[in-house]
């Protein structure tokens, strides 16, 4: 069975207040091309469909078109979509009962009461059945009801909640199981400091103090885990537990990352083949460093963050305009100047100042008598 894994579409996102609608539509076009080419059996979108919980009308329309295109492009494929932390769970869940009839499974709300379980879609191929578990973004407060907590007891941690949700499913791991989930999974047991080492992008929402970290070992027994949430494509501890990353760069910190989709081919149990396919965006996000002279030589339509390395004062009146002409989609201009260095020196030297020295600095032309006088005054002030 062939699975296509994308996530974190963030439809409607703005980059430095610029609308990326055109770029997104372009990249969705590219994805459709891939679908046409690959003809997967299952298309999985692992969360963060929209950028905001209340997406604009345009964003919804864009998604509408994208879904239509996917639907048209794949005749018998199942489309599995979960909500992420940027989405509104309820809105994603909307009309899911109707969509199900058309092979589109949209899950926004995780199990909340003790008689509810993770949405499971069972498909079969020549090797047998494959269970797909669609677990949308879980916040501990959402799933309180599953764990018999008192009203005043605080909710469990993210880690503990996910662990228990998976455990109570009583998954038969002899069959092939695929998980689609949108959480911050990390291989904590491998590396204690991995939290700080993970490369995060500006466009992600980070929790304060990384409370949403979940240990990846609770999902290690799945045959494949299609994850979303991290914008950079990466593995989470194992080969078959992957973040597909965003389809295109959504912030300056993602400039230069290789974005794409993941194709996973499931054979019989134990047999898994994973491929990555690169997507080329309409306009790249880049950082251009250099002096002013060097920089204005380049011209591009890409989304550019300019970092001027000039150390001296630029006698340019219309810096902004010139740069805007060169780069139509200029995001920001940053400069490296001397004063930066100055501050640092200043701060190191003048750390704890003796009042007398400061006074001498204040009066560069003080003679011996004056100095003696100020000395006596300073001593009196200190109470000596």
């Amino acid at each position, binding site marked *: 069975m062939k699975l296509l894994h994308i996530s974190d579409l963030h439809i409607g996102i*703005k980059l*430095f*207040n610029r609308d990326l609608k055109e770029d997104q539509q372009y990249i969705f076009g590219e994805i459709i091309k891939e679908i046409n080419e690959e003809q997967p059996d299952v298309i999985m979108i692992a969360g963060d469909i929209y950028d*905001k*919980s*209340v997406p604009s009308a345009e964003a919804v329309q864009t998604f509408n078109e994208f879904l239509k295109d996917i639907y048209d492009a794949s005749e018998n494929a199942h489309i599995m979509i979960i909500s992420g932390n*940027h989405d509104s769970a309820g809105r994603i869940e909307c009309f899911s009962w109707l969509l199900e009839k058309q092979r589109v499974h949209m899950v926004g709300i995780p199990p909340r009461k003790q008689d509810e379980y993770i949405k499971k879609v069972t498909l079969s191929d020549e090797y047998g059945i494959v269970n797909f578990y669609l677990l949308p973004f879980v*916040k*501990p*407060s959402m799933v309180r009801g599953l764990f018999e907590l008192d009203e005043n007891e*605080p*909710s469990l941690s993210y880690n503990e909640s996910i662990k228990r949700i998976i455990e109570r499913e009583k998954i038969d791991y002899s069959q092939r199981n695929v998980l689609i989930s949108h959480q911050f999974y990390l291989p904590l047991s491998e590396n204690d400091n991995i939290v700080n080492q993970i490369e995060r992008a*500006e466009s992600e*929402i*980070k*929790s*304060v*103090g990384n*409370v949403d970290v979940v240990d990846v070992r609770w999902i290690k027994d799945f045959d494949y885990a299609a994850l979303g949430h991290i914008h950079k494509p990466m593995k989470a501890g194992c080969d078959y537990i992957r973040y597909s990353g965003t389809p295109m760069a959504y912030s300056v910190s993602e400039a230069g990352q290789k974005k794409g989709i993941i194709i996973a081919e499931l054979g019989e149990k134990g047999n898994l083949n994973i491929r990555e396919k690169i997507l080329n965006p309409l306009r790249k996000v880049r950082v251009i460093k250099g002096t002013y002279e060097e920089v204005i030589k380049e011209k591009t339509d890409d989304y550019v963050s300019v970092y001027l390395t000039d150390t001296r*004062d*630029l*006698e*340019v*009146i219309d*810096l*902004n305009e010139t740069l805007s002409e060169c780069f139509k989609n200029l*995001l*920001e*201009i*940053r*400069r490296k*100047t001397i*004063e930066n260095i100055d*501050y*640092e020196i*200043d*701060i190191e030297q*003048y750390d704890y*100042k003796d*009042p007398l020295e*400061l*006074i001498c*600095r*204040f*009066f560069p032309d*003080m003679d011996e*008598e*004056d100095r003696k*006088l*100020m000395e006596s*005054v*300073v001593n*009196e*002030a*200190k109470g000596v």
Partner: protein
Amino acid sequence: MRPLYIEMTAFGSYGKRTKIDFTNISQNLFLISGETGSGKTTIFDAIVFALYGQASSVKNEKKGLLLQSQFVSIQDKPMVRFAFEEKKGDSSQVYTVVRVPKHMRPKKVKKGSNDFIVENGYTELLLPDGSAYTERNVDEKIEEIVGLSREQFMQVAMIAQGEFMEVLRATTDTKKEIFRKLFSTEIYEKITRILESRKKEKEIELAKIKTMCQSEISRVIVPEPSNNFEYHEEFMELHGLLMKENITNLKDYLKVLEKWCDSNDTDRKECKKELDAGKERLKKINDEYAKAQALKAGFESLRTAQDILNQYSEKEEKIKKDRELKSVLERAYEVKAFYDGFAENQALLKKTEDEIRKMMNEIPEAKETEEKLRIENEEKKKNFDREKEKYISIKSKVDEALKTFEKIKEKEKEYGHICDKLERKKTDSDRVDEDIKKERASLEKLNKIIEEYSDARIKMEKCTGDLNYFMEAVRKCDNIHELEQEMMSLNDSLTDLKNRLAMAKKEFEKQDDSYRRLNEIYIEGHLGVLAKEIEEGKPCPLCGSIEHPHIYSGNEESDVSRDDIKKAEIKRNKCNENLRSISDELAKCMAKYELFIRQRKENIESLHEFVEFKGEEYAAAIEARKHELNELHKRYSREVKESDIAKAGLNECEKKIESYTKQFEELRQQTVVLREEVSASLSALKEMKSGSNFESEEEARLQERNAKKQMDDSGGKYEEVHKSYEMAKKKVQDLEVLLKNIQKSYPDMQEKCEQKEKLYMEEMKKQLFNKESEWADYTRNHEKNEIASLSETISDYERIMTEAKAKKKAALEIIMDNEEPDLLKLTEQREEAEEFLNECDSAYMRAYNRYSTNMGVLKTLQGHFSNQEKTVREYGKMISLYRRISGNVSGSNKIDLETFVQRYYLRRILYNANKRFEIMTAGQFRLLLKDIDEAGKGKNEGLDLMVYSLVTGKKREIRTLSGGESFMAALSIALGMADQIKADNSIVQIDMMFIDEGFGSLDEHSRNQAVRILKEMAGGDRLIGIISHVTELKHEIGERLLVTKDESGSSVRWVRE
């Protein structure tokens, strides 16, 4: 300091007690959201109020009464309780502040009145160990614990709505104060002040020097134009300058003054010379004058002496006479003295002779008496001795007897005791005996009672049985009564029924009648109809005959129809039924009634069993019988009771009797014993009494006394006689002695007398008197003191005469050959010379004064001058330093020392702030201090901030930032300051930050950046709270405190998405 929880009661829009717990949240960054006016800012107000007593906004001050909630009644006291912890090293200490603002509360006195009074608020601080801080300055203590004043707190930890611009735009002076505490630059301010005070001291010194100099200079005696001083104008000019203004020209003046002093010196010397000359001249004149004066005096005295002599020569005659008289008197009195002596002695002699004669007579008498008395004396003595012996013997006897009597008395006492005891015992036994008798009597009585009522019990029981049995009868009687009552009611209903029956019958008859009539009419009518139809030969419908002899010719037309008849019939039937039913009822009632009568009769008959009566009088009989039985019962029960009591009493009596008898026995025995004792003691007594001499004590004493008395009497008599005998003896002796003496002295006296006479005679002769009468006259006529006065007068005269003579002589000597001088002229001369001398003197004094003063002034001024130079120089230095330090230099750099120092620290803050500001503004802007050269122009702008645009490379004032940019700048600065405070690890450690709105002015990107920065900060241990209504923030920030408001006030709730 990190907040733990805050509790508000009746504060702002929070009516009931609301507690917000900050310790229970998972992330340190939380959002406070709610509708407009729901009470979000009030939470911050509460925190600031708890710490500082005022609500958060600096511009919009709210305190006291304004904070009291209007959502609850005035009864509830507004209060805020805020707990926070301070980390000191590793430990954290929890402080709790409870603050009540000024509020209104209802007056407790009058009920129902609507008076409120304003009550002052108070503050309590609970220290970590649980004790309360009891000093008066709680606010200061809180400020000390927190480490920041309210303004500083509002800059760093709490950014209030709309007021974040304050730090940005504050003037340097305001900023200086805020930073002073943060950076501990108080020392510089202190330095400035010390320098200022020193400068002032120097100023005072200078002024002092100046006044001293001026006062000295004022003492200078300036030259007059007449002095012809060379440098007169110069001097005056300088002098005037120095007096009026400052003493800068002191040096020149000193020079001129010196010269002037020299000229003074020469003047002085000249004057001195003149003075000396004048003195000489005066001296000469004075001498002359003195001489002349002496001469004049001599002339005068000569004249006076001459006068006197003339005067007194007249008196000479009289004086002579006086002299003579005096001498005569003297002589006479001499004589008299001797005569007096002689006369005296003569008298004395005569007296002595008389005395001798007397005594010769007295002596023999006295001797006789003496003899008599001696005899008596001896007699009395003998008597006395006798009596004494008698007395002694009696006394010994009496003593013995007394002892015996003592013993007897004791014995008698004993006897008395025993008799008493005996008596008492007797009375006791008598009493007991009586008791016994009494008890026996009552015992008999009780026995009697018991006998009497022995059968009372039986009788009583029987009576009870009778009574019970009789109750039957009573019941039956009651039954009968009931029956009678029912019968009466039945009777009533019977009569009622009968009436109804009668009525119904009547009704029925009526109906019946009418029905019959109607029927007849109908039939007649019918008949009429029929009759019409009847034809001969046709059968009659009624009877069927063919013949109709009498055809009915009645009323053909009748208005009675068959229906009517039916109706009437029905009515009649109804009446009939009615009648029947009534009669049935009546029958029933009658039957019942009959039954009752029968029953009654039966009952009455049965009653005969119980009681006799006639006919219907059973009730009374039964009553009587009942009464009888009750009485009996009562009587018998009473008897029973009494007999029971008696039985009980009986036991007691018997017991008492026993005990009494025992007592009686005891007493009897005791009595016997006592009797024996009595007889014993009585016999002893008798013995004792018989063995004494005297009858009784009294007698013995009496005898003794008598004997004593006699003895005393005789003793007394003896004494008397003895005394008088002695006296008589003595008298005789005295007389004899006296006589001897006198006789001895008599011849001497005689001699003396003769002598005296002789002397007198001699004297008389001496004084040239022949006869006594001569000198006696004089003594009689003239007193002795005349002599003295005469001699006085004489001597006076002589004295005066001699004096005058002497004077005259002296005067002549003085005068010699000279003539009388003319004093007047001389006086004139002298005066002239004196005047001149005075003038010279004063001139000299002036010159001397002037010289000495000016010299003195010169010297002191020279001293001051050197002092002043030094001081002026020092002062000049100081003032320039001070001006520079305090930024008061005109023209250039107005930056003062403290600002200069604070700039260093501010740079560090800006470095930290810029790290965030750059990120937030996408690298566009950076915050700077104003350039030090520029910041000093005009006024002190050393701490003003500038914005440096990295894009254009140019600086501009911070006021040119837009609203959103200003917010970002303020936020960055606040964060920078917080960093600085933390890094310095100083006393102040603020682990919280609350931001009230402001995010609405940022666009999406900036807001994201801002939130990201805040999240970074919260990642440490800083608690950050944001009030905002921006919807997107709800999504991005996990923890949310939702504030809602309804009619009972605001309430809060933690919401976790």
